């Protein structure tokens, strides 16, 4: 069965590319455009990996990450933070809150795909 990836970002222009890429790689993809929707979709869609933007309306990526990591049932869920915040301090925060990887925009799509595959061990 294909791995499921949830893309969480409020900017449609990046979502298009991410969705396209992940589908091309054979993953099942769902999209959420804010933090609340993301949490709801994690429950219903049950993804294996999250591509999570930090700057979003309603709930920030940090908050979503924190909420998910507080749930022991979701311990196996991989989280990749995907953000325009490029400072060391924010990267440290993301990793400290439980993200498995932290990718700064703009990023190389190839490297992102490689990283996702590596994390899902496919």
């Amino acid at each position, binding site marked *: 069965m294909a791995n499921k990836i949830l893309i969480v970002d409020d900017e449609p*222009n990046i979502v298009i*590319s991410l969705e*396209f*890429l992940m589908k091309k790689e054979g993953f099942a993809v769902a999209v959420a455009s804010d933090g609340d929707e993301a949490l709801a979709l994690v429950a219903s869609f049950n993804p294996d990996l999250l591509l999570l933007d930090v700057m979003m309306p309603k709930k920030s990526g940090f908050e979503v990450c924190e909420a998910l990591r507080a749930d022991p049932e979701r311990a196996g869920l991989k989280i990749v933070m995907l953000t*325009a915040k490029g400072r060391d301090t924010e990267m440290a925060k993301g990793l400290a809150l439980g993200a498995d990887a932290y990718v700064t925009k*703009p990023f190389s*799509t190839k490297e992102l795909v490689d990283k996702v595959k590596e994390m899902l061990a496919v």
Partner: protein
Amino acid sequence: MKAKYRFLLAVIVLGLLMTGPFMVTVLLVWLGTSEDEHAELVHLLFSHLPTGIAMTVAGFVVGVVVLRKLFKQYVDGLLSMSEKLRLMLGANRNFRVTPEGPPEVQHLARAANDLAQQRDVLLDDVSEQIAVAKASVEEEKNRLAALMSELAQAVVVCNLDGRILLYNNRARLQFKALAQGPTSVSGGALIGLGRSIFSILEKNQVQHAEEVVRQRLAAGKTALSNFITTLRGGQLLRVQMVPVLGGSERGDRMSGYVLTIENITRNVEEEARRDQVLHALTEGSRASLGSIRAAVTNLIDYPDMEPEMRERFLGVVGDEVAGMSQRLDRTMVEYSDSMKMRWPLEDILGIDLIAAAQRRIEEKLRLPTKTEGLDDALWVKADSFSLVFALLFLSSRLQDHYEPRELRFRLSAEGKLAYLDLIWAGPAMSSETFYTWEMESMHVGAETSPLTLRDVIDRHGGEIWYQREKAAHRAYFRFVLPVATPEIAEEQDDNKRGAGRPEYYDFDLFNYEDKSVDLDRKLSELTYTVFDTETTGLQPSGGDEIIQIGAARIVNNRLLRQEVFDQLVDPERPLRPESIPIHGITEDMVRGKPNIDLVLPAFHEFCADTVLIAHNAAFDMRFLQLKEKRTGVRFAQPVLDTLLLSAVVHPNQESHKLDSILDRLGIEIDARHNALEDALATAEVFLRMVPLLEQMGIVTVRQALEASEKTYFARVKY
């Protein structure tokens, strides 16, 4: 043994001497004769006894008289002389013994006088040397103070209590600029000798810095400490502290500190703005670049994607690129704004500015320049870099459009404005052309500036226009710039008041420790506020109001003419026409000035921790007290009245009016009946009275108050 007993003893000895030999002779004769002869002897003796006794008594009396005379001359005379010599030794150095009495005593007196003379010469010599040494120390202090006052940084020296011992002119101007409020001294940034630095800077921060300095001193490191503090008005100050060492015998103890103070509010604001710009350009671009990069990579990696998908990716790229361009434009606009704020104006000599522009134009454009009608003493406030570039830019535009053979510069002043003209010969230009030049970003060849000519002009708070000289068939651009003089003008204003040496320092305050007013301290040691008010009339309770308050400070027996309070007050009622000639204050002068509700708190702050002095203080105090309820400000400090003190010092004089006292004490002043001038005159009077009071044994404030009270009651009874 007392002289009296010795005299008695001498009298007894005299009596014995006069009767003794006779008695002994009679006894010997008695023993050497027979019984029969005894009766004859007794008869003989008794028949002559009255004569003998009379002779002896007479002789004894004469003897006593002579003895008394000698005693008086030698013993008592010497005693009284020794008393006088004691006087000479202590109370009155100039007293001399009058030689009198027997020659030997006179010799002694003269010898003593000679000795005293010799001593006086020596003493005078010593005090002269002390005076010379003192003067040289004083000169060094003055030199130091002068040096400090020239420094471009704001410097304040304090003792360990935080009392200000020295501050320089820059510190005064800086805190004056920080003071906010309706009057010249309100706003909490009061700087003054003997005042506490804690009224300006946060006490905890200063003490913490002091502790750091001590620790560093003890550890043998460079003893300094920095901190940043926020004033009430939100201004940011960076303060550096270094210790003043000495003051103790070992000379290595901290006895005070020097604070160097810099206002960094603007720097911080500018840095924050620059941060924003940087942030907008980096973080703001990341997201867009991310979207573009991903879309483009997809387009490249999957060339065979469906046309609909390809369209969407291309749409993403177009969309994001447009967004980024807009953001960049917006940031650049803000950036040039922040550059406008960042560059401060400096004072520069007008001809130097023109010379710099000439050099640039000739180098860059190969266009000859000349000057005419230059005011070579004119200073302007300018950012020379952008202004020279603006001149170069205009010149290059002129060269492109009109090809003038040469350009000329002219510089003149009109009041507070400087006119810098760039002149060329040629046809008239349209105002549209000039408008375009004004509003486009400046560029000359490859050199560009994000600013427009208009930006440069705005930053100078100036103007620019185009004008023709028809007769001479030429035209010019006129730059209007601010003339740089205000600080110098202010100095002149101060010099009028304080002739001579600067009064920004008082090192004696190193030993000043007490904070509140202590009535048992010497009059000469206290800090005073000497003040005077002008009023609409003489009836405080009849509705008359204060229209002016003037005050000056006396610190360590010195009148500080630079630390004054001088404020007109709107009485909110018409002035009495008959009073106008007295105080010289007219309706126009007081209207729109702050009212007493605003002025009194500021004045109260000015007076903090001082003893008040006024001439006929009861009158002024009554006005202040009547406002207590309304303003909530109470003047509870002790008050000395120079009128009463004058009555103490010269009880037999008829008049104790200020003018009479000034005459009597030989004080000359320029003007009177302006509150500040009168306060200064009163201060001079008080300073002259302090030694006179001391001669009368009135040394402390408490004694002065008690003495004043007595004369006051005496007057009331009278």
